[in-house]
């Protein structure tokens, strides 16, 4: 089997193009940001009334619902497009993120009713999204929530009430998700 370096380079270029096209079809992870950002926004009034102690029961229900909604979205999308993406690894990561947020939220929430109760889950979400972006080899998706995380952490460290931190973080997640979605829609 003979192959010239030029042919090898052309073949690799073709594979690179196919690879990028398949990755674009598999999509960027915008939906979880909008879904969980919306849920975080909705949790804000509850935290304002009941404090961070309300976060555990809220997220046990809302988090489960959010994952079901997200899964349904991707199943339907895969059915329409005919491509699923790297589903299993991503779902494992999402479950770890969700569990990590709950455990971190409980642990810190037990210690205090201060913004730290919402701060640690934010850091867990950020770490999870960095991992997700790395898995999907998409640095933009990976860093999409970084500005929102920085703003939320800054506000929390500035002594803001937990519900304000939730409000800001939820809004920035929704905005990041909308931004990723519009980026995907570009030719």
């Amino acid at each position: 089997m003979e192959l010239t370096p030029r042919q090898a380079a052309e073949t690799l270029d073709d594979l690179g193009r196919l690879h990028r096209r398949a990755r674009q079809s598999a999509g960027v992870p915008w939906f979880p940001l909008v879904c969980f950002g919306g849920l975080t926004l909705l949790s804000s009034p509850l935290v304002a009334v009941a404090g961070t102690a309300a976060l555990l029961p809220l997220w046990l229900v809302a988090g489960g619902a959010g994952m079901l909604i997200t899964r349904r979205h991707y199943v339907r999308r895969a059915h329409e497009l005919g491509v699923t993406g790297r589903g299993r690894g991503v779902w494992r990561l999402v479950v770890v993120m969700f569990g990590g947020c709950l455990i971190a939220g409980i642990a810190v929430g037990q210690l205090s009713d201060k913004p730290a109760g919402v701060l640690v889950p934010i850091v867990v979400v950020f770490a999870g999204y960095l991992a997700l972006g790395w898995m999907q080899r998409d640095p933009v998706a990976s860093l999409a929530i970084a500005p929102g995380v920085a703003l939320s952490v800054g506000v929390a460290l500035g002594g803001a009430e937990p519900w304000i931190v939730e409000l800001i973080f939820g809004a920035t997640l929704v905005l990041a998700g909308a931004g990723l979605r519009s980026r995907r829609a570009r030719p």
Partner: protein
Amino acid sequence: MSHPTRRLDDAVHQRTRLGILTVLCEGGRVDFAYLRNTLELTDGNLSRNISRLEESGYVRVAKVIESRRPRTWLSATPAGRSALAAEVTALREIIASVEARPGRRPSHRPLAEPT
């Protein structure tokens, strides 16, 4: 060490089959129509190449009924992923073997990571 061209796998080393494996490795589970449109192939051509890859144990084929219509889903097996990775490595080595010659400058731009 053998020349990189000797390490190319006949079952994979063909542009269409390399393309199929590349799309499957990145796309997860992919349906027949998506693959046909992406690779711009006819049904018959794609079927033949998929059969060859399936015989080699590189792809998994699942025929299902969805919304009362038959649908064929394809995915790469671990052996398929390894075969693609080995092929890409061999192709890179072919290029590198030329670039390593004295007085030779790289003649192409850096390549995207396909796996």
